[in-house]
């Protein structure tokens, strides 16, 4: 087993769908797939977080392994024979997408998620009549979903756990992968597992410092700028009419890159590219939410 730190420059050859691919030692199977030009769907993986391998949409067939393996976290070993498009792989990916879509509101998820649902032929409607979340015994014919009220408890962002696929990314970003605030955690278990503050207190009573890094990593829009949420509610949210402008955060000397999403001459949300060395997509409250002063210049009372 390959445990030691990867030695610079050493490579490993594996076979992806019958084609040999040479990648750096310590790479993951997913990285080998990318090198081979094979797309792997991922939901809980993000390049600026350590893999948690929980969503299982990235599974591949590995010769010699009884179950499928998560390609986002499994490291390559010399001679591995990997299949990314076998019937078992397609079946599992389809079902993961189908199960998630049957329980979660994915309407604000990225465009690729919808493409995968289509491509793998997921049919989320075949599990019954969608019903709001309950831990109780199901009514025959209903398919319990995570439908629940949106948490709007602070001026900066909202939490709509009807959209949450429990990918753990927000917890990781709030915790030791970026923010070290640990305001949120996974609570409960099984289908009742959910993201929560302690005793489900409102965000202003929690440890949250509103860095918004959880919003930055959320793949489904469960965590959303309040500005975006309100515009969506009002039916005015329109990405087609938005421009994205890169700039450097003016507040301190770190120099985080900001992407200002502007619609109708107003900043509607702020993101940060994951590939910048400085903070790898993570920001603090000032960069993330400090834009209001720009827009309120005209109306602010001196």
């Amino acid at each position, binding site marked *: 087993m390959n445990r030691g730190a990867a030695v610079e420059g050493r490579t490993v050859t594996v076979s992806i769908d019958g084609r040999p691919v040479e990648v750096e030692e310590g790479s993951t199977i997913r990285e080998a797939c990318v090198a081979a030009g094979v797309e792997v769907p991922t939901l809980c993986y993000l390049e600026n977080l350590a893999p948690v391998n929980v969503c299982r*949409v990235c599974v591949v067939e590995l010769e010699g392994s009884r179950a499928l393996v998560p390609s986002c976290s499994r490291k390559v070993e010399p001679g591995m024979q990997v299949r990314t498009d076998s019937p078992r792989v397609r079946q599992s990916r389809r*079902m*993961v997408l189908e199960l998630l879509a049957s329980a979660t509101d994915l309407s604000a998820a990225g465009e690729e998620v919808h493409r995968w649902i289509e491509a793998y032929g997921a049919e989320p409607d*075949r599990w019954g009549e969608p019903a709001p979340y309950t831990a109780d*015994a199901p009514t025959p014919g209903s398919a319990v979903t995570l439908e629940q009220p949106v948490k709007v408890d602070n001026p900066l962002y909202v939490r709509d756990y009807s959209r949450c696929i429990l990918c753990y990314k927000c917890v990781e970003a709030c915790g030791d992968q970026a923010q070290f605030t640990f305001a*949120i955690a996974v609570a409960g278990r*099984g289908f009742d597992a959910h993201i929560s503050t302690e005793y489900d207190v409102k965000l202003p*009573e929690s440890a949250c410092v509103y860095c918004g890094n959880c919003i930055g990593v959320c793949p489904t829009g469960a965590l959303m700028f309040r500005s975006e949420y309100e515009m969506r509610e009002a039916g005015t949210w329109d990405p087609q009419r938005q421009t994205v402008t890169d700039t450097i955060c003016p507040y301190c000397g770190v120099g985080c890159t900001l992407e200002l999403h502007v619609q109708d001459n107003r900043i509607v949300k702020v993101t940060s590219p994951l590939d910048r060395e400085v903070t790898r997509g993570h920001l603090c409250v000032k960069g993330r939410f400090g834009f209001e002063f720009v827009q309120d210049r005209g109306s602010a009372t001196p």
Partner: protein
Amino acid sequence: MMTETQNPMEMEPTASERTVIDAILGSAGAGNGAARTAEGLRVAVQPERPHGRDRLLPVLLALQERIGWVSPAALGEVARRLRLPYAEAYGVASFYALLHLEAASPAVVHICDDLACQQAGAGRLIEACEREWGPEGAGEGERAVAWHRSPCLGRCAEGPAVFVQRSGASSFGLGAVETPATVMQSLEEGPRPESLPFIYRTDRHPQPLTERMGRLDPTSLDAYRAAGGYSGLRRALALGREGVLRELKEARLLGRGGAAFPTAAKWEAVAKSPDLPRYVVLNADESEPGTFKDRLLLEQDPYAVLEGLTIAGWTVGASKGYIFLRGEYPLARARLETAIATLRERGYLGESVLGEPFAFDVEVRSGGGAYVCGEETALFNAIEGKRGEPRNKPPFPTVHGLFGRPTAVNNVETIANVPVILRLGAAAYTSLGTADSTGTRLFCVSGAVGRPGLFEVPFGTTLGELLQAAGGLRPGRSLKAILLGGAAGSFVGADSLDLPLSFAAVRTRGATLGSGAVIVFDDASDLREAVRRIARFFRQESCGQCVPCRVGTERQWELVERVVAGRPLTSWHEERERHRDLAAVMRDASICGLGQTAANAIESAWALGFLGEGEAVQ
């Protein structure tokens, strides 16, 4: 829940909560880096022994037992003292069924309605309790007694079983509970003395694992020694590590925890690992529905298990052993604590075991009520004070186990076999059982038989012979099905009586011996109720980490509920297809064995015709 404005972090624990916390974490102030001198000056100090996060579950369980619940203020204080984020501590506490995060009743009664108790009249008991105490869970905190349905409590031969949590007093289990009055009596007069289920005795073959049960005083080390106890450890010390491994290899000991993994190979991997320290862990979290053998071993023969664990420590080069014990087994805990104290006193545990240059000690950790924590890596996380979520493998426990260290984790029955092998020698041991499955096996037979109980028989004994030993079916009844291996196992039909019970033979029928649970159903049993219970079990016990299992077990429950209600969606055929799809993704893409086996029993029920159109058997 919380009031709008109160930050629980600012709430103060009560004096009694503080006492409980101090008892486990030391008095407040210790470890916070500051102290007061005699003159009242505040000085910085190096914390003497900073408490690790692994104290979290012990302190939460102590709060539950002494105070009756884990209040926000107490949890906040614990988090502060352990330097844990409050939200994370909450995430851990909310994982466990035995921890109440809202004010609970002074007595909380968990009533088993699982597969064996269901057949023993749990339904009637539940109806009576509902009349007596009101609806399930309702009025918790206001009523004197609250009750909940519970998964198997490990007393399946003595159903209906209950487990009672009392605030301010230790919890206890009861078997053969007919009415709520039995529970009330135990609450008022104290739990009645422990009774043993039927334990099968025969002189046709040796029964090295059960021969002492119920015959020796389980608290007496001398009684155990007089019966040959600790000669296995002496032989192990004389043989040396390599010698023990050779003996185990020759004995071909396979793990009894479900996966039938060769114990020698596991131990060898740990022994060879360059990382230190190494650990041995006893998996005593027994929660597979229909299984109670580990409880009886621990309660009735604790020294034998501890002897085996000490041999494990010696062989792999560990000086610390952890026992992760099911939270619902308080008597086993008491017996283990007594035995460990005696062994320390008498030099069988401690700095120098039996005068040899070998230090070994054992610590018991109780679980919080979660089936998944029996999965070995979830178990490590539970001990470490994290949510009991299984880890992705590789890395395997032999490399990266408890606290990230090389760890040998074994089932109680596996470990109990170790002193037997060393005492008898591999040759005598392998004369028992079959070529692929050596030795004896403990079967927990429950359900529709004349004499449910614990049966130690050589591997290869047929299912029919086992049922015969269990008194056969009740008069006038006919066999319908047998569930082998508990909820994670599968049903076999009435035509399986000739099946030899060995790992290999059972596998050829697509079944598994699993935990040794054998639950028998006759023509009076309601198999559809059993299937519903299994579906609910997995829905409630999934850790929730991975999608196939978290959502899959919910959809499987829904599917089973509507199929049993005779209300299939679209068509019977499509329901079967849906279930096949669920089974495939759960088996192929789940992280751990829970999700991977969650569809097995239900698939076998379809195959045998107990579910679906026509309902062959109902």
